[in-house]
């Protein structure tokens, strides 16, 4: 599935929810079910700065696509991270580099993130793109 289609799918899923509490409830469910990172990859180098909660992000290249693994000590953050992973994991580096991310605004996530928290989110996206650039150069 293409990055754009995955994003549309996520927006569709969030459209069903009427209240913010329902959306959060869904994020929490996602947070509980995210496939997490191996403990060995929860290194200080993989910590994303700027988040109030701890976020680890690890990436591996496999048959031309990048697979992302992540974890957070806060469950809502983990839910958000899981959406990012669903969007970007198993995609080619150049598609990740060129992708414009719009689902976060469309589901209204960004307006519910304080600048502190939005900063953490921006850093997560930056790190994902950074991995894609690094892998595309190594190919």
């Amino acid at each position, binding site marked *: 599935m293409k990055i754009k289609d995955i994003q549309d799918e996520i927006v569709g899923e969030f459209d069903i929810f009427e209240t*913010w*509490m329902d959306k*959060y*409830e869904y994020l*929490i469910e996602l947070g509980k079910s995210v496939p997490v990172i191996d403990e060995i990859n929860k290194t200080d180098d993989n910590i994303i700065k700027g988040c*109030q*909660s*701890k976020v680890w992000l690890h990436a591996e290249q496999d048959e031309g696509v990048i697979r992302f693994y992540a974890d957070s*000590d*806060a*469950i*809502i*953050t983990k839910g958000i991270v899981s959406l990012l992973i669903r969007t970007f994991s198993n995609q080619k580096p150049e598609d990740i580099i060129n992708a414009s991310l719009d689902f976060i605004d469309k589901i209204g996530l960004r307006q*519910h993130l*304080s600048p502190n*928290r939005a900063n953490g989110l921006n850093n997560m996206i930056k790190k994902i793109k950074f991995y894609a650039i690094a892998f595309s150069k190594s190919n």
Partner: protein
Amino acid sequence: MNVLKNIDSIRKDFPILNTSINGNKLIYLDNAATSQTPNCVINSISDYYKNLNSNIHRGVHSLSQMATEKYEDTRKKFKSHFNAKSSSEIIFTSGTTHSINLVSSGFSKFLNIDDEIIVSQLEHHSNIVPWQMLCEKTGAKMKVIPMNNIGELDLNEFSKMLSAKTKVVFVNHVSNALGTVNDIEEIIRLSHSVGAAVLIDGAQAVPHFNVDVTKLDVDFYVCSAHKFCGPTGVGILYGKEEWLNKLPPYQGGGEMIDEVSFEKTTYSELPNKFEAGTPNIAGVIASGIALDYINNIGLGNIKDYEDHLLNYATEKLLEIEGLKIYGESKDKTSVISFNIKNIHPYDIGSLIDNLGIAVRTGHHCAQPIMDFFNIPGTIRVSFCFYNTTGEIDTLVDALKKASTMLS
């Protein structure tokens, strides 16, 4: 008196309390970070720019003289409030952080590699980092007064740390993260017995009870106006005149000089020596109005009512399954730091924000305290005299809901 009789009319003084957040009426419980601003303070700022705006201390024209008078009258207000010996012992700064930096940087003149300085484990980063910078500059060593499990400082250990090498001790009056009221009388007495100077960070104390610097015999006492219903960007530094005379100026510029030539500049007398440049005139005057406002309600009444809120909230919060309070000193201000089960404070904070409840989550700029308890942070609720027990009930319901969702 446990309840402020005129709570309804007090709440009407604060326009922001009518704000809606995400469709819910704002419940503001982050007063230790900043308190809200009453109409009289907001109007004072606006009146200043409408009727008084001019630069102080230098104009011969009437506006400048009127503004200077208001500014200097405000200094007198703080002088009497803190019972300082003279108005020149009151310096206006941009905040507690600025005040601490002003003092700590000045101490580089007095310290050398053999000296020691003492901080407490309970400090805000702003009362740690400037002094660490001082240590880097001078080679002096920093020692830390430890705390116990309920968040009280161990003064027995402190007395053992003191020696002729100790030059300055800097401790908060009240911990911003836990609300502990420290026994600063004893800390000052012990420090003076070895000839060390003492700076007390009173940012979290001044909004809640009276402080008498002469009775305390403290060398420096600092606070911020925005914690006691004043505007942001104004700090008050009290310093004993003998100390302020000894300390070098922090910033050079206009206002702080006596005579300037390219060969040599002489500095002006106190307090101008430490107030280089055009100060935050509107903010300082408005801070004086904020001081009048809290004094009109009465700090005694404020303390009684906030104690009532603290006790009510502590009892209600402890009914929540798995809730643990950090900081259980017998003497506390109206601050409660807690976690629920193993839930990350950020998750709880995010959910209850959607219900319009403003709390602080995280390490509260006091990472050493979080390290002590081995936790990433806490949820902190902090009450002001305009909060109500009804708001606490709503908080407790919201926390129960959040806890169920996150468990």
